[in-house]
């Protein structure tokens, strides 16, 4: 059994140690907000935070995160940055199909934690690894700036 903390709650996982965190979250624990897009760490749909850092859950085994603090989209309303981002996402009406948006918000939250006032280049660098097929990039950019502004206010 591998033990880790998900959104502040300690859980024991029965999955084999080589199981990607993505599938343990989705299939064993029912945290389906984290999405499967590519399975090879190139689309960012599965982005979660491990000890505050953004990682790709599709290629991160549960063994590698044993004992660590995992945060998913389901807990983003529990911290200041997450709340600001979710509110800005709603104000800017960012999502279309919405499938990539958990990963977008997790990537954006990691950016704002590091850099409270990102410029366009910072946003490009932080967000370019998270794909959106519906074309919401400009709204994502606007919403990140909007959230940054509310956090700085």
């Amino acid at each position: 059994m591998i033990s880790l903390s998900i959104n502040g709650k300690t859980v024991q996982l029965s999955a084999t140690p080589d199981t990607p965190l993505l599938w343990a979250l989705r299939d064993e624990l029912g945290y389906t907000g984290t999405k499967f897009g590519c399975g090879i760490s190139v689309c960012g749909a599965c982005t979660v935070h491990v000890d505050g850092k953004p990682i790709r859950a599709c290629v991160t085994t549960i063994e590698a995160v044993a004992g660590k603090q995992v945060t998913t989209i389901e807990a983003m309303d529990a911290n200041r940055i997450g709340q600001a981002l979710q509110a800005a996402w709603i104000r800017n009406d960012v999502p279309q199909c919405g499938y990539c948006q958990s990963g977008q918000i997790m990537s954006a939250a990691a950016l704002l934690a590091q850099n409270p006032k990102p410029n366009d280049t910072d946003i490009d660098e932080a967000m370019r690894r998270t794909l959106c097929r519906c074309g919401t990039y400009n709204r994502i950019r606007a919403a990140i700036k909007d959230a940054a502004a509310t956090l700085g206010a």
Partner: protein
Amino acid sequence: MSTNAFTTRRDFLKGSAAATGALVIGFTLPVSSRFAQAAAAAMPGQATGFAPNAFLRIAPDGQVTVICGLSEMGQGVHMGIASLVAEELDADWKSVKLEQAPVDKAYNNPLFGMQATGGSTAIRGHYEPMRMAGAAAREMLVAAAAGKWGVDAAACRTQEGRVMGPDGKSAGYGELVAAASKLPVPQNPSLKDPRDFRILGKGLTRIDTPAKVDGSAGFGIDVQLPGLLTAVMVHAPVPGATIVSVDDAAAKAIPGVKQVVQIPQGVAVLAEGYWIALKGRDALVVKWDDGPLGSLSSADISKLLHEATKKPGAVARNEGDVSVAVAKTVEAVYEAPYLAHACMEPMNCTAWVSAGKAEVWAPTQAPGPNQGIVAQLTGLPPEKVQVHTTYLGGGFGRRFAPDFIIASTLISKAAGVPVKLVYTREDDMRAWFYRPASVTRFTAGLDAAGNPVSLTARVASPALSIAAGFTKELPKGVDEFAIEGIGDMLYAFPNLRVEYAQAEPGVPLWFWRSVGHSQNVYFIEAFIDEVAAAAGKDPVEFRRSLLSKQPRLRGVLDLAAQKAGWGSPLPQGVHRGVAITNCFGSFVAQVAEVSMDASGKPRVHRIVAAVDCGRTVNPDVIHRQVEGAIVYGLSAALHEKITFQNGRVEQSNFNDYPMLRMDEMPRVEVHIVPSTEAPGGIGEPGLPPATPAVVNAIFAATGKRVRTLPI
């Protein structure tokens, strides 16, 4: 899908006014006791809910639920349908929620004759029916209030979920539902004058947004059921390949693998969860007989299409005489590749086939037809098949296809348990549902003064209408999807001929956002730019001169040119290109601003779009659909192609099928032409002009024409 559905769509495109009229005439409000029961079931102990028709119900607490049979794939259709009903109902927008409909004839898309979403039809097909549904309920609520107060209904008005009567009388809709539900449903409710709209035409925020920012939105892949097993499949590597042998010993030896199931489409490994199922799938040894397509190669396909343009084709359009003498000739050949849809949510479906009943939970654009398909596969009557439509993680036409529903149904039937079939990204990329490749040969003739005299276009492409099963034989030898965008273009050439040369490499085909326009508008708009250059004319002025009888198309061209500052100075190295289209009942023009980097790669800085899509239901949704369509088109133009070698698809995932990313995203401006015309489609028309606008800007920057994609 049936030929009839195809005809319906085409007929509509030929005359939107006539079709809209037919809709109104043909429309009846289905009063279904089943929906009244559903309404009652949803409100235990309060059997007084009001469900006047299949599209809405009102609870005694005033909660309005709009029931939508269309699939939400990001285009905002839930918002659109809810706002149409709410407008005429005069609902309090804050009290409106949306529920996804089951499969029922009541929810057939009037433009398809079946319950399905696509072809940019949602608003065009439902603009009046949904308003009538709301208006009928509103009249009943007014009648109920008038009856209660003993006043004339004409003395009452409605506002934000309340009926107001004389002498300050007022009642919330919730208070009136018991009385209203005893009244007859008006068959011909009167609709508002659009000048009185207070929801439609405003930019209200979407109702599905909150669930899409906290991870709670339910996509197909998120479906959970007791006893559910996840299936991952070995799919046929080549279309038409057949299984020679299966060795599943290694797969079955993996702890957690529950079953291995063989179906005609492949072999599935079932386990509790995706990871074990994937490991099991990867441990299967399946030998295939490739069949006739085992030697398919992109080089051969390209050659086949190019050769086909060198011989006369079936005549799709012929006006005047293109053999007329000209002073100058312009010739060019354009080519576009096969493309994948690459929805962010890989194809998946949960199916549960049990004794006497089947249920599927699917992110599908076509719940109606799939009910029939599942019934056929299981031998059950359609009424014993329930199709639950989830949110779709992207659609773009791909989710009109039934492959994932068929496979999951067959697997569940064989396994006897509920099964969630999930395609890996590689399975999804290699599922053989591609936008057709196409090659078009153009010849244009100019007179001595540079006036356009003639245009000949010969399109060589496989026939999507045959591949998709709409027809077995092409009417007059022409596949309408292969030529749309060229065959129906509005430029006034005195002599014009469009031919179609059917060429069938054998690759299965499917509908891809904006279908034939996706390549044909690139072809024609890039070529028109070549003709303008040969005539020594400005690209905007040249187009205007050929559109004197097309006020709507010329209107968007003028607006885009004006907003983009066409002709005004640009920063060093930045150049403009323009392109236009008319499709799905709407008109779009785009101006792209592009520069070339040191390595010769284009950088798209800004796209200015002008759109005339008739009356607007939600301008914010229009902005987003146009911007999203531009991204989808630009992504293909810059990066995407599906190629084949030895019958195999060479691409596998987003690493070798790259898509547009944040750092390549141009600024996008969308300007809407105010209009009182019938609504046009908006999910697709923004796509076709993006590519030609960019390649025309590349010509302006470099003097080189881009005649093959990706750039």
